[in-house]
């Protein structure tokens, strides 16, 4: 449209110009003519007036055509091309410019299109590479997470400030606060992403180990490891090994290489924790055993020896003296026997050879053996009377191999078609039976089976059945129940106790734990200039309390605290705090309706002065978030005096933030906000449930606030404060 106007304007201007030029020319010529010439000219013109008029009439059309052509070719075409290029550059890389205009312009168009092609190819390539790289990275992260969660060792990775970036389930279990038997308070894990390791292990020990590692690094040792022994809060003795995480050196950057070569920068450290309580206990039991055996025996032996030597040296002694010495010898010999028996029973664990045995549920061992026998030998297997509760200490590989070996000989030499397994408890031992029916096989045969090396389908094992059984501190024998034609091998092995093996049960059934967050590597210290930090990168504790009523100054008390940690934009469902509190006062029926906590649920729970220190530790170094935080904070502040515990960290209130985001809406109740933001509300009106919902709400609010230009903690607090005053004034 504008082009058309432009064109019309240009055309009009050309007409006016030409008409003007002709008029001026005609005027000048006319003025120069003499009167007679003018007459003549008039006559000449007059005679040709038709031709001139016709020419004058067609001239504009001709010019219009010409100018139109030129305009299209040299003005319109380039500007359309420019628009098309703009389109390719900014909006649609798939678009290609249409060839138009002059030959030169068409050439330009072709080149532009070629350029667009190669640019697009390049872009696609880069995108593909990025996708691939991030897929690899994700896969690697998952592999690492899976590996870590399966590791039998406890692993904790920290950045140089001691903040935990990664931990595995074992570490979580090892570093758990002990159950407070008196108060019945729940166990609470001390590890958490973004938390300080110094809250768990002695800072000085870690710093010392770090210095040690650093020293050795600078001296050119590329893989220094420091170790120390310390105790966990639960009183377990642990050996800690520390390996440094050294900043990656970019290849081909000489200044980096040089720097790394002189003093590699430690960006963090890996701690491998090993519970050595039992090892140490075993060691000291062995010591005690040695002592009992040596010193206890020495005295008695001395008494016997002295008495015997008296009798030998002085054969002339009277009958009475003689009897006295005999009596002494008898008494001391009896004492020795008793002591020896007691020692053997008491120290049975410490006496046996230390073959690495694992704790395994007997039923699981049998199931594994069944699978193996069915697959490898094609025999039928069944179970009879398997005690599911029995745990054994076994080397499962060699034991299953032994069972399979027995079954294979039964099949090959006696045509046995089916074997059955039984497992029963017999005091300190478990009886594991392999049962079959058929003709008796005789004890000599079974003896030879036990001593020959096990041969399984051509795979000879260096071990004999006897070796395997000995390794398990067990015994194996063959028995027969003649009337029922029932025969069995019975393996007697010591049972172990489930509480010792409880740690083999995974903490959670989830395959992908939330136990790592490498983004924390880039996180600076939490404290300085918190207000300058982006909301999306802070660590928060979202919490909620349930109370006996609304007014702490009138004696209302907290009866429940629930909290969850929020790190790098993730709600960490494993890192929660949940504790009922004995308010030391009665509950009103009205409040029970709201929180649903019955008075008997609170009986025996710890009081607030026990709970607050633990909660304070849980919140350490984080920003607090609560819905209607002022309410909860008032309850906490009322306890500052009596408990001496102050919550000084910054606090954000989702109620106020909601008012910042939706100033014109009046509903800022938690349910209403959650619904507005599309969050499923489950488990509400428990402190932890509400804390979780509040956390989700806050996560959704971060981008909404960013859209309003509120990005840092400082900005959020300021905005919240403004609405707060606005609401008060209102």
């Amino acid at each position, binding site marked *: 449209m504008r082009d058309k106007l432009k064109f019309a304007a240009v055309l009009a201007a050309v007409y006016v110009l030409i008409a003007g030029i002709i008029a001026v020319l005609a005027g000048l010529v006319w003025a120069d003519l003499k009167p007679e010439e003018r007459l003549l000219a008039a006559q000449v013109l007059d005679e040709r007036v038709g031709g001139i008029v016709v020419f004058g009439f067609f001239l504009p059309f001709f010019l219009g055509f010409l100018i139109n052509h030129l305009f299209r070719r040299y003005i319109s075409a380039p500007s359309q091309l420019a628009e098309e290029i703009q389109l390719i550059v900014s909006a649609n890389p798939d678009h290609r410019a249409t060839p138009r205009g002059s030959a030169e312009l068409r050439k330009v168009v072709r080149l532009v299109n070629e350029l667009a092609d190669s640019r697009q190819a390049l872009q696609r390539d880069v995108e593909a590479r990025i996708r691939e790289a991030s897929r690899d990275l994700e896969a690697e992260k998952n592999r690492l997470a899976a590996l870590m969660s399966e590791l039998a060792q406890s692993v904790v990775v920290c950045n140089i400030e001691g903040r935990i970036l990664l931990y595995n389930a074992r570490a979580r279990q090892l570093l758990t606060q002990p159950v407070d038997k008196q108060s019945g308070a729940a166990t609470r894990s001390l590890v958490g992403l973004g938390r300080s390791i110094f809250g768990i292990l002695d800072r000085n020990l870690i710093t010392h180990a770090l210095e040690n590692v650093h020293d050795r690094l600078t001296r050119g040792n590329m893989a220094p490891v420091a170790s120390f022994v310390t105790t966990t809060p639960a009183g377990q003795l642990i050996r800690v090994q520390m390996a440094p995480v050294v900043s990656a050196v970019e290849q081909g950057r000489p200044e980096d290489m040089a720097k790394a070569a002189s003093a590699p920068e430690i960006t963090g450290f890996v701690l491998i924790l090993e519970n050595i309580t039992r090892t140490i206990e075993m060691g000291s039991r062995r010591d005690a055993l040695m002592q009992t055996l*040596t*010193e*206890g025996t*020495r*005295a008695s*032996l*001395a*008494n*016997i*020896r*002295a*008495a015997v*030597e*008296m009798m030998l*040296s*002085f054969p002339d*002694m009277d009958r009475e*003296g003689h009897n*006295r*010495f005999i009596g*002494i010898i008898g*008494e*001391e010999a009896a004492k020795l026997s008793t002591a020896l028996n007691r020692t053997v029973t008491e120290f049975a664990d410490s006496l046996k050879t230390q073959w690495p045995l694992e704790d395994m549920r007997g039923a699981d061992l049998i199931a594994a053996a069944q699978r193996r026998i069915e697959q490898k030998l094609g025999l039928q297997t069944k179970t009879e009377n398997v005690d599911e509760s029995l745990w054994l200490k076994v080397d499962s590989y060699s034991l299953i191999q032994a069972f399979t070996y027995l079954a294979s000989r039964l099949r090959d030499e006696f045509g046995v078609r089916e074997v059955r397994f039984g497992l029963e408890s017999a005091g300190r031992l478990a009886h594991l039976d392999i049962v079959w029916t058929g003709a008796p096989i005789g004890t000599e045969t079974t003896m030879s089976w036990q001593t020959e090396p096990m041969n399984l389908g051509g795979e000879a094992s260096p071990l004999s059945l006897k070796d395997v059984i000995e390794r398990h501190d067990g015994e194996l024998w063959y028995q027969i129940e003649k009337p029922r034609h029932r025969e069995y091998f019975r393996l007697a092995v010591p049972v172990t106790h489930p509480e010792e093996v409880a740690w083999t049960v995974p903490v959670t059934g989830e395959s992908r734990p939330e136990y790592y967050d490498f983004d924390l590597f880039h996180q600076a210290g939490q404290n300085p200039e918190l207000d300058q930090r982006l909301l999306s990168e802070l660590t928060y504790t979202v919490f909620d309390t349930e109370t006996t009523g609304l007014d702490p100054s009138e004696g209302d008390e907290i009866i429940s605290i629930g909290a969850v940690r929020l790190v790098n934009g993730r709600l960490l469902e494993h890192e929660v705090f949940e504790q009922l509190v004995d308010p030391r006062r009665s509950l009103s029926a009205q409040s029970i309706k709201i929180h649903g906590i019955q008075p008997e649920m609170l009986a025996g729970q710890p009081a607030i002065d026990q709970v607050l220190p633990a909660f304070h530790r849980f919140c350490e170094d984080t920003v607090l978030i609560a819905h209607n935080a002022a309410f909860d904070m008032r309850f906490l502040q009322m306890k500052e005096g009596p408990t001496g515990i102050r919550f000084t960290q910054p606090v954000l209130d989702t109620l106020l933030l909601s008012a910042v985001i939706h100033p014109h809406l009046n509903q800022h109740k938690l349910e209403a906000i959650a619904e507005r933001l599309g969050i499923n509300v489950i488990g509400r009106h428990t402190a932890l449930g509400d804390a979780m919902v509040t956390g989700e709400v806050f996560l959704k609010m971060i981008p909404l606030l960013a859209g309003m230009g509120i990005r840092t903690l400082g900005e959020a607090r300021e905005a919240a404060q403004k609405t707060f005053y606005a609401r008060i004034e209102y």
Partner: protein
Amino acid sequence: MTKKVLIADDEPNIVVSLEFLMERNGYVVKVANNGEDALKCVAEFVPDLILLDVMMPHMSGYDVCQKIRENPAWQNIKIIMLTAKGREVEVTKGIALGADAYVTKPFSTKELTAKVREILGE
């Protein structure tokens, strides 16, 4: 003049043998069943030599030995320590506290007799 030997041990079964052995070797023997008793006997009986067991209730042989050596009047009393503890550090401690000899249980009565004679300078 017959020499006097004090046996300080809480275990009657060794005391019987030691008492018999010493008497047969011609010494005047007295028995104490614990550390305090032993110190009392030292004061009253004034032995030439003590066979002193280390592990006794209330007051150990080490303590008794130390107390005896603290008293200038008792410097000449010879002390042989008897013990079921055979570690080298314990031997060292006994000697350091003033024992003349240290015998680990079980011992040969012949050798013990020889040692007693030697220490008493007979």
